[in-house]
């Protein structure tokens, strides 16, 4: 049962919804987790956001019109939930979004679920200097190897703009790693 249209049909059917949702969880939990994790950085936060994402998917599946792929729709929810999470955290601590991200990265040094060395930590710092959308594009391409065509559907941006965005991101990160 991997055909998206068939899965969607089952998700919208009251009798099969729960079973189909379990299948959806099995298929996408890891991909969505890593997408969220690269945005929010800490495992505990990623866990919270992942749960919220799936709860939203479950609640809103009947409203999904099928204008885009189910996969893209779920990624969009995960992206929005992650950004909202960072915004809320920043508001709560009365700091800017950039400062909230810097804080999340500085917490990585004591995070038991981060086994990166100095250079990996520096890469995270370099990523955090990029504009929000460029960060998302870079993470999706560099770590998750998502195709530009799929990314275009998820982020509702042209493939050309995404390629340019990724190119600039790589250049800026390289410059950061060289200068710092």
């Amino acid at each position, binding site marked *: 049962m991997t055909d998206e249209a068939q899965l969607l049909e089952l998700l919208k059917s009251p009798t099969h919804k729960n079973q189909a949702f379990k299948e959806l969880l099995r298929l996408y939990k890891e991909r969505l987790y890593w997408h969220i994790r*690269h945005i929010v950085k800490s495992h505990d936060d990623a866990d919270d956001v992942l749960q919220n994402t799936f*709860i939203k998917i479950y609640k809103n599946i009947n409203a999904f019109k099928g204008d885009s792929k189910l996969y893209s729709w779920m990624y969009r929810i995960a992206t929005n939930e992650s950004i909202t999470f960072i915004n809320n955290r920043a508001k709560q601590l009365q700091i800017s979004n950039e400062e909230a991200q810097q804080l999340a990265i500085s917490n990585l040094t004591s995070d038991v679920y981060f086994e*990166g060395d100095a250079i990996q930590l520096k890469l995270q710092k370099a990523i955090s200097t990029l504009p929000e959308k460029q960060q998302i594009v870079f993470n999706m391409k560099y770590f998750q190897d998502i195709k530009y065509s799929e990314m275009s559907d998820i982020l509702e941006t042209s493939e050309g703009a995404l390629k340019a965005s990724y190119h600039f991101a790589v250049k800026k990160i390289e410059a950061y*790693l060289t200068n710092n």
Partner: protein
Amino acid sequence: MKKNLKNIRSTGFKVPKDYFENFEETLLGEIKLKETIHKSGFKTPESYFETIDDTVLKSIETNSKVKQLIPWKQLTYISGIAASILIIINLYLKNSKNQVSFDSLETASITHYLTEEEFNAYELAGLFSEEELTSDKFIEEPIKESALEAYLYENASIEDLITE
């Protein structure tokens, strides 16, 4: 046909400006970066992906149960009471002489609200007409020199005051 074909010297295909220069740069840049760092360093607790299904399903179940805590009958009573309270408040406000208007609000409160709500310059500009925006006499009262001096002393740094 043959004559036409002879006249067609190029394919008509073209590439974006500096495509090949950028292609090399992008590709080499990425390869170099991936050689240095190819993993993010993030990891998950052991068996996380085996247990997350149950956690999510339980959360959904709990959420649904919470929704059912207030039965429809009770909701009707509650909404009836809420509506009555609203009507009373409305009637009170209508009769009250102390009606809230923009004039009664302190400028500081409005400034605070606008800062808190994070309006950007474009959103704020939308509240003014083009004439108001282009006018350079938008302040009716002239600013006193002493007040301006005090403001600059409090808020500006030396870098702001030095122009190239």
